[in-house]
């Protein structure tokens, strides 16, 4: 299960997210994430993705299932990367749309605070989701710039 501190980050402080896949030729693809939601099992994350970012997505997932999600808190640079395997897609629910709304609001507020863009600019950048990728988290790594960047925090690295 994803540790509580990381759940708090995902549900609270994280304000920008992007995902990655790779195809059968080991060519990577980027997919902006319009919202995220941890399922009740605390191991599966639902990533909400707009149709503009589908290039290479489902072909890669059906080929090998590998998926990574990087979430950052804009401003502090606190960042974690979640790696795991695709477990399926799903229809958008009201809870997913609420998660999209939260992500859009957090991004817009951070952008306004730290970069000075008007909030509508930030909200329009986080596009309405069309599909959901569900993946089971296998590992989590710190990506916050600094001496511990790259350290695996889930499961904990052996001392």
């Amino acid at each position, binding site marked *: 299960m994803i540790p509580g501190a990381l759940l708090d980050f995902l549900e609270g402080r994280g304000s920008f997210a992007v995902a990655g896949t790779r195809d059968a030729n080991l*060519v*990577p693809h980027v997919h902006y994430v319009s919202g995220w939601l941890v399922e009740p099992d605390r191991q599966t994350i639902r990533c909400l993705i707009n*149709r*503009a970012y589908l290039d290479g997505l489902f072909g890669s997932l059906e080929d090998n299932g590998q998926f990574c*999600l990087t979430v950052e808190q804009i401003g502090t*640079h606190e960042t974690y990367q979640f790696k795991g395997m695709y477990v399926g897609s799903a229809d958008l629910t009201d809870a997913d749309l609420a998660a999209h709304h939260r992500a859009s609001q957090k991004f817009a507020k951070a952008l306004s605070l730290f970069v000075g863009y008007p909030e509508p*600019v930030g909200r329009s950048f986080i*596009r309405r989701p069309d599909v959901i990728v569900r993946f089971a988290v296998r590992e989590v790594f710190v990506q916050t710039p600094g001496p511990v*960047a790259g350290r695996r925090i889930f499961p904990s690295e052996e001392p």
Partner: protein
Amino acid sequence: MIRGALLPQEIRAVMDNGVPAVVVTCSADGVPNATIVSHARYIDESHIALSFQFFNKTTRNVRENPHACVALNDLAGSAQWILGVQYDHSETQGPIFEEMDMRIEAIASVSGMSGIFKLRAADVYRVKSYRLLSNEDSIE
């Protein structure tokens, strides 16, 4: 959507806007890695450079599997440029490195990361393709 291999001039403004870029790479054993980088620099219409600040997974991945995908953010235009690139070489001196080093120092100063952000190398990539995603691409 536009596809091509030679970058158009209008991408230079996006690379100079100070907004971090996203880089996705893949290890030789097939695990993707997505990270945020401080600075992407235009070199010419078929090459870009990314700041290499830490010994991290991105650095290792592109040295064992040179394919990478770079996303540049045009916040004002509500668009992204998605580049398919291939790692070519690293530079630790010379005009590209020096200019990126100064830029990283400035970014670090503004973002409270002085002493943490330090350019180790300018990693140069060859551009294989690009796409421009605007809001029109997200509307059915």
